[in-house]
């Protein structure tokens, strides 16, 4: 292959870049440097990264190049650079979770996902911005300032993983890792015109992932193409003895599924409760087109009803704060992280230091959710709130079971709206929570989901996404249907969606 300019190099998909690395037409050092240069040029405006590790990334790249030159067989993605959400522990690199309370904390160990990236020779470019402890849908709750949507820098990139989504959308990285507790991979994917996958709960190890809500959290791929997500999923997925909730089975055959082209006879269910009122017209219009595409290709599309999904948001905002209030109790100023004393107190007690530190170290949204969770778990309120939410969770799982008896996959818009303006919902938490209305049911039931770009909304010209959901452990179906939608739309448009994103002003 001929030599590529850096401008083109950073626009390659991860699979295309991997092919060029394998045939020797590009080195990992070249590719990694091109992405570091892009970060230097545009991240002042985008702010996808909280930390950039140029030295470490280039050292890994040089090592991979040397091993390849020596004829060593290497994993497919060896040498392809990646960005990692700042909620995964990285040895030798700061891990802040977007919070002041962990400012400058350098973990003495790697998350299993990170260990697998390192073992496969992926240069880690740095850590991406996020809502504090993954609480939010806009990345505005980061203590280090918001990330900006590469399609319109005045708008949110989604959240909590807005940094990872913006990094791949702005061509700062071909791949990123996200985490999804209620939609934090899929919703940023939808509003930035990129691909995001939440695997089946237990499909990817949570070891070394700083927990928000342990029964909901799941790490997954953030990419520009469905095939790239499949390659990354197979790399990070599979059993991990260090996570007791890890599924003891091999990772799904995602890459093979992404190569399937035929959807004839596939049974597709459109979820009645995840559409219509409350969904922006442009989001609904692009969704209807995807449904029509599937029908035209021979899929059997039916409407299915999941009535309990109406209560999913309420159940989620009780279960999540309850688990979070317990998980975040570990930030106590004793063994790591911030420690500040209360003003005007001589020889304060540990308890006083704890309360002063948590006041100084946590932002508004974290405080809101800890207090909400503490309330929901209080004796006298437990049955009505947390107990009821757990019953709703059962009803939602039953709705999924019933739906998947009739259909192979479910379909809905990923997010009810396109990217909104920075600041628009900051003082209205409930309105922010509604961003996750379509993504939350999957987390509550543990089933996998993918968001794939579905086009641009007519009213604002901003990206929209379609979500595909599959039964637990049937993640391969996401890649099959996701790749079909991607291919069919790219053919119709004659280009990828991201090629329509405005060129970012490049700092020199």
């Amino acid at each position, binding site marked *: 292959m001929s030599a590529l300019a850096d401008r083109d190099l950073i626009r390659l998909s991860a699979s295309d870049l991997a092919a060029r690395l394998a045939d020797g037409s590009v080195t990992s050092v070249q590719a990694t440097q091109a992405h570091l240069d892009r970060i230097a040029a545009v991240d002042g405006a985008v702010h996808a990264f909280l930390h950039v590790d140029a030295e470490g990334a280039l050292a890994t790249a040089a090592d991979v190049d040397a091993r390849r030159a020596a004829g060593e067989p290497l994993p497919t993605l060896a040498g392809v650079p990646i960005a990692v959400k700042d909620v995964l522990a990285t040895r030798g690199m700061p891990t802040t979770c977007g919070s002041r309370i962990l400012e400058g904390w350098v973990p003495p*160990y790697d998350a299993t996902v990170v260990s697998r990236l390192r073992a496969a020779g992926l240069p880690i470019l740095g850590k991406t911005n996020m809502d504090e402890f993954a609480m939010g849908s806009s990345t505005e709750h980061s203590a280090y300032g918001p990330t900006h949507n590469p399609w319109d820098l005045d708008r949110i990139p989604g959240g909590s993983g807005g940094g990872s989504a913006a990094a791949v959308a702005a061509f700062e990285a071909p791949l990123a890792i996200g985490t999804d507790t209620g939609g934090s991979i899929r919703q940023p994917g939808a509003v930035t015109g990129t691909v995001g996958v939440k695997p089946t709960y237990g499909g990817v190890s949570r070891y070394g992932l700083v927990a928000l809500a342990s029964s909901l959290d799941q790490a997954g791929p953030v990419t520009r193409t469905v095939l790239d997500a499949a390659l990354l999923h197979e790399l990070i997925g599979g059993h991990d*003895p260090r996570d007791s909730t890890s599924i003891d089975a091999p990772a799904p055959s995602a890459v093979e599924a992404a190569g399937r082209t035929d959807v004839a006879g596939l049974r597709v269910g459109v979820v009645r409760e995840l559409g219509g009122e409350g969904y922006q017209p442009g989001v609904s219009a692009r969704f209807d087109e995807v449904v029509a595409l599937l029908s035209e290709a021979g899929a059997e599309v039916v409407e299915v009803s999941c009535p309990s999904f109406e209560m999913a948001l309420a159940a989620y905002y009780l279960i999540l704060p309850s688990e979070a209030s317990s998980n975040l109790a570990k930030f106590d100023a004793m063994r790591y*992280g911030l420690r500040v004393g209360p003003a005007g107190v001589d020889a*304060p007690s540990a308890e006083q230091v704890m309360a002063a530190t948590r006041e100084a170290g946590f932002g*508004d949204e974290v*405080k*809101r959710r800890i207090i*909400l969770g503490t309330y929901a778990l209080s004796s006298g309120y437990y049955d009505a709130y947390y107990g009821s939410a757990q*019953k709703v969770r059962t009803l939602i799982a039953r709705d999924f079971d019933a739906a998947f008896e009739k259909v192979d996959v479910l379909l809905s818009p990923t997010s009810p709206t396109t990217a909104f303006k920075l600041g628009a919902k900051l003082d209205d938490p409930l309105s922010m929570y509604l961003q996750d209305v379509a993504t939350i049911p999957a987390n509550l039931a543990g089933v996998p989901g993918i968001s794939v770009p579905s086009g641009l909304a007519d009213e604002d010209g901003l990206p929209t996404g379609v979500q595909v959901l599959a039964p637990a452990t049937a993640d391969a179906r996401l890649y099959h249907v996701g790749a079909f939608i991607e291919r069919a739309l790219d053919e119709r448009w004659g280009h990828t969606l991201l090629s329509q994103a405005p060129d970012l002003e490049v700092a020199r």
Partner: protein
Amino acid sequence: MSDPGTSAGITRADVAHLAGLSRIDLTDEELDRLAPQLAVILDSVATVSQVASQDIPPTSHAVPLQNVFREDVVRPGLTPEEALSGAPLVDQQRFAVPRILGEEA
């Protein structure tokens, strides 16, 4: 505190009490701001209580969990230096913490 399911929600005093339980020194300004927001959120999520009296098994976890065992063999852990590397204060290879007993103790 008020009954769940009613629209009275959560008061400023409730929030101050919960902040104490949560070990967060909220300021007066934060109490003024967060208390009404929490009342709105709580009102909205109270819809789940419509299933409170129904006989439905609770789900705490999406995937059925079983205890996981492993062989009791030694494997590498953190060194003392690594374990202490993030500590706010270290004294003689230990975590140094503020006093844990009250003045009167």
